[in-house]
């Protein structure tokens, strides 16, 4: 019965992780594209080649179009109107043009009036330079360079190919950027702060508080309270966050309320980093608390009533019941909630994206949100898939390490060991 589990694990966990790892080892971005690149001698490539191969760089730095026999023969082979070849041969043979535009002006003026597409086709045939031409393969570029009189050694070819390649390459640079950037360090600290505070205050402590207090309530009152605390989770997140925005905007409820006492309106959500964190943690905490509440409540329900009765007979106070009856039997659920919520807080960013967008000034930018912004969504449209994937991979590693630590702290091995009594 191991096969279905193995298939599931490899499909939904290993494959994404492996793909992320592959992306993380590249410099893939909007500019390099995903599917691969071409070889193009751009001005930038010429600049890059200037130190290593100055002679070549100078030789290929200028565009040059020449009407020559070779081009005319190629033109004849294209089988466009015969007039083109004849007129070019009689009137323009040997002419040299320093730019494509100038060459094309002459071609356009031919008596047979080539169309714009034909003009391009013809001018390509007389192109005696490689500048700005896009070569789909490396060999095409090398062949063209050879035609121009540059015979390169394999090592030189590598240098040229490297300088002119437009696609992505394998690199470990992303991890160096992550390791060295002060901003990344800040985002890492933000994330640690956000996850630990939300987890400790809300997802575990507050959830535990809700579960225990509702446990001591009459059943019907308890379910009303639990239902109320479920609202943040069952409300669509966009609407839920919008409600918080209405509360905190300049023209929102808090501003209107304190305005009655003469305070000028302000945007409480984004007023300062402290405010932003306060609300970000509340927004996430209220959602997270409900999950822990449900798990803990049902775990408390599973404790045999006799234990409560017995402890009451022994004169235990509520606090002593909590301390000695409930908490020891909640170790497993607390481990589960801590572990699960750590991972979910690490990976989820939609509430932050919708409320502060990581602001003010990147103050509430957490790791997963930064990865999203880097790889998929930013104003300049410069999507850095490689760097974003590397950031995501860091998150995977952090998640696995934290899970292992939790298992150790909560002594998972004793939790799953066979009960002694049944031996």
């Amino acid at each position, binding site marked *: 019965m191991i096969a279905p589990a193995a298939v599931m694990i490899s499909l939904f966990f290993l494959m994404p992780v492996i793909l992320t790892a592959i992306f993380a080892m590249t410099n893939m971005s909007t500019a*390099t594209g995903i599917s691969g*690149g*071409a070889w193009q001698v751009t001005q930038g490539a010429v600049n890059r080649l200037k130190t290593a191969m100055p002679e070549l760089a100078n030789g290929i730095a200028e565009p040059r179009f020449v009407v020559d026999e070779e081009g005319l023969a190629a033109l004849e082979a294209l089988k466009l109107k015969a007039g083109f070849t004849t007129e070019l041969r009689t009137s323009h043979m040997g002419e040299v043009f320093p730019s494509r535009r100038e060459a094309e002006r002459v071609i*356009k003026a031919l008596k047979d009036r080539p169309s714009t597409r034909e003009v391009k086709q013809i001018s390509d045939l007389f192109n005696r330079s490689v*500048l700005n031409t896009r070569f789909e393969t490396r060999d095409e570029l090398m062949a063209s360079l050879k035609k121009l009189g540059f015979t390169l050694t394999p090592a030189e070819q590598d240098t040229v190919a490297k300088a002119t390649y437009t696609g992505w390459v394998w690199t470990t640079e992303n991890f160096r950027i992550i390791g060295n950037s002060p901003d990344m360090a800040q985002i890492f600290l933000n994330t640690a702060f956000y996850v630990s505070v939300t987890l400790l205050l809300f997802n575990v402590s507050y959830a535990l508080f809700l579960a225990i207090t509702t446990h001591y309530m009459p059943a019907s009152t308890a379910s009303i309270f639990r239902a109320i605390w479920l609202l943040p989770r069952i409300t669509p997140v966009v609407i839920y966050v919008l409600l918080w925005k209405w509360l905190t905007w300049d023209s929102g409820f808090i501003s209107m309320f304190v305005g009655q006492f003469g305070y000028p309106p302000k945007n409480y959500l984004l007023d300062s980093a402290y405010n932003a964190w306060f609300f970000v943690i509340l927004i996430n905490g209220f959602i997270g608390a409900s999950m822990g509440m449900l798990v803990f409540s049902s775990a408390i329900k599973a404790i045999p009533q006799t234990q409560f009765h017995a402890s009451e007979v022994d004169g235990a106070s509520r606090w002593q019941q909590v301390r000695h009856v409930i908490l020891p039997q909640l170790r497993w659920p607390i481990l589960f909630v801590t572990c699960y919520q750590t991972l979910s807080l690490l990976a989820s960013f939609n509430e932050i994206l919708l409320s502060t967008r990581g602001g003010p000034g990147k103050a509430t930018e957490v790791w997963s949100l930064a990865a999203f912004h880097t790889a*998929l969504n930013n104003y300049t*449209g410069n999507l850095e898939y490689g760097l974003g994937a590397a950031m995501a991979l860091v998150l995977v590693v952090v998640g696995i390490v934290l899970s292992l630590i939790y298992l150790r702290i909560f002594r998972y091995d004793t939790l799953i060991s066979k009960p002694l009594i049944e031996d």
Partner: protein
Amino acid sequence: MTVLPILKSATLAAVLFASTAVFASAKDVTISVWSGGSGPNDNYRTDAFDIAADILEREAAIRGEQLNIIVQKTPYSGWEDFKQALTLAAEAKKAPNIVATGHEDIGPWAQAGLIVPVENFIDLDSWPISDIYPNLMEITSFNGAVYGIPQDAESRPFFFWKPYMKAIGYSDADIEALPAKVEKGEYTLKNVLEDAKKMQDKGLVQAGYGFYPRTNNGPDYWQFYTSFGGVMEEEGKLVFDKAAMKRTYQYFADLVKAGVTKKNHIGMPGDQWWKEVATGKAGIWHGGTWHYARLVNQEGLKDFFANVQFTLVPAGEGGKANTLTHPLAYLLMAGHTEEETQIAADLIKIASEPRINALHAIKSAHLGISPSETKVDLYAANRWASEATERLLPHANAMPNNADFGKYWTIMWKNFEASWTGAKTADVAVNDAEAELKSALGAAIIIR
């Protein structure tokens, strides 16, 4: 009895067959157009293609061809989602035929092979392309090829709320002379800070409303770098001028320190900002020529010229007054048949004709792309278009088309925001930016 149904279906089949035959001789072409940053006033960015398609169909009919163009329009109001959607669609080979986007996308998209040079399909020496301002055509070129046809032009002025300027001691004549003073560098960003402070001290505007900048990242912020003497690119290489960038970061930190700009201004709700500048809650602010359209059409600022003065972005220390033009361009996306792309290119050419482009220019308060457009009645009769063209456009810079510019911008902005909100001092922000630029761009950027 059985003959009738057979006859019926045979007739039906014949009719169906005949109808497909008719359709087959007609050419159905679907051309999809996407545009970014297009609000309710910018509908002609895509709607122009309805008009262009109609004309092209008629031209084809006269030549004896039956051409039926279906234009699919997808305008996006923002930029982030638009660029994400478009980039990913293009990578998945589902790109639209035409896209209207900021010219700065040409660099990375051309390198990735997502777009094809428009000059492969359009004769640049033919009308109306030959008539487009040469500097705009320059802005849409990359690696020696013209990749896009400018769709609009604009520039980004400073705005002053006239009643408050009067209240702090400017006469009508002073206000009238302000644009000239700004242009000559006699009224600088320092004066902006002082006047904003005066307005607040007099209780004309609330704290943080003296100078009320753009609420999110945008090309606008490069203008301040230019005002403080910065240069974005030189001879194909990006330039990071540390001193100029520091003065820029410091200026916004100073604005916050003086209390005339809010520390948490960035990220505030955009709608609120619009409402406030339209109703005189802010003293001095900056924006783009297209703000005129929104202020007057959507925000109810009826008498714009009586209430608002506009100028170039004033000079700061070490620089001069300037403005930035951020033309959008129509680009041809790769991955379509040559025939489709040729039709798309023909449509772009028609949509760029003065009368059609003027619809967009005037409705959205952008500036025209060619001299003859300024002579179209609709354009010539519009006070805003003619005054803004004359006062601003000659001083306009543009962001460079450089495949690495997006990286530079992201790093520049991140630290801009950090120093603005006080998360970093201007010194630290500039040093962090320098360190990150060095590691991200290496020799591709000149740091000085």
